[in-house]
């Protein structure tokens, strides 16, 4: 090194260059948040669950592409649980080992089977499993995404009673349940039917069916012989289509009203039941594809065009967007409040119980949980099938809170 040269300056310059290269070469790494999806994509609720999964995964793809959560990348782990109680616990253990911060459960069986273990592990899960009220009473780590199934019956009864009284009837209307013999199908009976009796209905004995029926004449003829006025069914689209078709064939339409639960308002009902779907009711809490000006519906269409190549008007697709939206907003809130690096199951739990009026883009009313409340929707809608399209019949029916154990 010659005279006049400054070796320390070269050293400093080297260090500065090194730091610049280091900064440019390594982008700020985003915190990875893992979510576990207990996907019942095979088994008895496969069709419904697959639509949930499409809606759920598409929404997160959309978030990543168009509205990313600052400092966070979401990694969704999905396992097929097949609505099989033997699968839930091993999958939960797998997710626990993988370090998930939150989860999504697609059915009542999963909610029921994992409720206690989720409380122990303190992993918050949004859940479609409204057929198991003990999951939220006392409040734990299950956050319901939809009304409890007894609520669905009460909304149908309230609306029917209004019409019954307006029509000038003095006698008690008779309500009968024709439903699927599963925890989901029967979930409204325990709390809902005693409430209906107190509300002024004569409650007829429930008629159950097993498996995937192709004919429900026996149950319908029983309803006819008992003089039912309102038939309530907490069933899936395919079941409801069979029920409506058989009712039409037996000449029961117009003599009694058929009201289905959240899963009964969908394109499949119209597709399978044809004209027989006309006049059918569905009690639900979310928007319909026919509401073209609804922001959530527009988003649903945009997502399907972008990720699926075309719009498939499946109701359950929208229902899959709802848990994704709630979870994404909770992560966003947690990232803002606690910092991206501190997002874990506790932070998401705190976010879910703190956030109020989550903007659901019009897909549902704004959702709110709290430390003591896991039931975000207290106002329900009744939709009616008119000319092959589900349209608004009565929106915003306030439903009572039927606590488990309190009859």
């Amino acid at each position, binding site marked *: 090194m010659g005279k006049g040269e400054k070796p320390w300056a070269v050293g400093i310059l080297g260090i500065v260059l090194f730091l610049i290269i280091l900064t440019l070469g390594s982008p700020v790494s985003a915190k990875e948040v893992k979510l576990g999806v207990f*996907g019942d*994509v*095979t*088994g008895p609720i*496969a*069709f419904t669950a*697959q639509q949930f999964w499409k809606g759920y995964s598409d929404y997160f793809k959309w978030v990543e592409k168009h509205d990313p959560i600052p400092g966070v990348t979401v990694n969704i782990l*999905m*396992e*097929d*649980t*097949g609505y*099989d*109680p*033997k*699968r839930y*616990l*091993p*999958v939960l*253990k*797998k997710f*626990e*080992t993988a370090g998930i911060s939150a989860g999504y459960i697609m059915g009542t*069986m999963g909610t*029921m*089977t994992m*409720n*206690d*273990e989720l409380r122990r592990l303190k992993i918050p899960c949004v859940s479609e499993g409204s057929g*198991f*009220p*003990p999951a939220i009473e006392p409040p734990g780590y299950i956050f319901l995404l939809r009304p409890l199934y007894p609520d669905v019956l009460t909304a149908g009864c309230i609306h029917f009673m209004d019409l019954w009284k307006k029509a000038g009837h003095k006698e008690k209307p008779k309500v009968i349940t024709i439903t699927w013999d*599963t*925890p989901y199908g*029967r*979930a409204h*009976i*325990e709390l809902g039917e005693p409430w209906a009796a107190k509300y002024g209905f004569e409650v007829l004995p429930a008629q159950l069916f097993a498996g995937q029926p192709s004919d429900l004449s026996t149950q319908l003829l029983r309803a006819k012989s008992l003089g039912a006025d309102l038939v309530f069914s907490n069933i899936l689209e395919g079941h409801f289509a069979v029920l409506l078709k058989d009712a039409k064939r037996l000449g029961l339409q117009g003599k009694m009203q058929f009201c289905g639960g959240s899963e009964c308002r969908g394109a499949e009902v119209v597709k399978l039941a044809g004209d027989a779907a006309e006049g059918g009711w569905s009690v639900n809490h979310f928007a319909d594809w026919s509401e073209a000006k609804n922001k959530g519906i527009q988003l649903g269409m945009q997502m399907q065009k972008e990720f699926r190549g075309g719009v498939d008007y499946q109701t359950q697709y929208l229902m899959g967007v709802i848990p994704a939206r709630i979870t994404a907003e909770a992560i966003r809130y947690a990232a803002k409040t606690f910092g991206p690096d501190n997002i874990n199951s506790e932070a998401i739990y705190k976010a879910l119980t703190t956030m109020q009026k989550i903007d659901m883009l019009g897909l549902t009313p704004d959702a709110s949980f709290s430390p003591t409340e896991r039931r975000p929707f207290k106002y329900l809608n009744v939709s009616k099938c008119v000319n092959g399209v589900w349209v608004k019949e009565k929106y915003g029916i306030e439903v009572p809170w039927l606590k*488990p154990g309190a009859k």
Partner: protein
Amino acid sequence: MWRPSGIFNKSYIEDRAVIRTRAQWTALVVFLAAIIFFPFFFSNQYILSVIILTIITIISLQGLNFILGFTGQISVGHSAFMAIGAYATTILMTRLHFPFLLSFPCAGLCAALVGMIFGLPSLRIKGFYLALATLAAQYLIHWYLLHGGNLTGHLFGLSVPRAGIGSFVLTSDRTYFLFAMFMLLLMSYFAKNIERSKVGRAFIAVRDNDLAAEIMGINIFKYKLSAFFIGSFYAGIAGAMWAHYLLRIHPDHFSLMDSIWYLGFLVVGGLGSAMGPIFGAIVYMGLKELVSMITPFLGSLFPGISTNIFSGLALIIYSLVVMVFLLFEPRGINRQFGLFKAYYRLWPFAY
């Protein structure tokens, strides 16, 4: 029975021993040590959980093996007998405040008594008709558990206390694995010994020809009911283990489909053998996991047909496996295992 060269029995005790050679004793000790240390070196909770559920299924299948495999009586209500065990241990612990050590065997006994009652028709009918009678057990028990009021938890099932002795509670999968493995060894030991006893031989005689057995002086009334008693006891124990592991029970955890698959996979494992239930349960639970892993993958690969085919893939594969075994190896994996053992013992000689 093939024995290693040079092994001779010099007494009845040696003749009756299950473990005969020093090599077998060594293998047993190594196996037991491996079991005890396995959960402490193996931290994968998922695998541990699957193993625990497999062990529960093995014990249940061992029970069914007594009824179907040894005695030749069909039971389509085995899952319901598991439910009795699960509910019995829960109710005894929560309502009557029994300690786990007492409620657990009582659960087996309750299931055994209920099983024996539903086994009564076996004295008059058999085959298809007995299947229908036990099918009634499945439906009646399921119905009762759903409509049993507060006792059975209405539609929501029951929350189950953890298993434990005194202040030692089985809170982790590791401790539960050790408990489950202990139960498996105990129940397998009893199963193996019952099979080799006078009772076991009477069961087999009833299965092979009940008329001939009766003429030979075997009380078929007693032995058919005994088979249902023992088989349902095993089911009850398996049900109680299920309950204490999941910590929540519901009638739908014990479905008719489970009863049917238990029958199918007992055939796959090998009817009427001590190893059959072990092979059957491993194949059943292994397939369950395998199908669950490949289904989402296949669904994403062929999205157009996912709803129609892949949603029922598990049922298709289970059915195919059972059919293939019924057609090509009705004596199950156990026979192939026996052939392999015989070959291995003679190796490198052909005969």
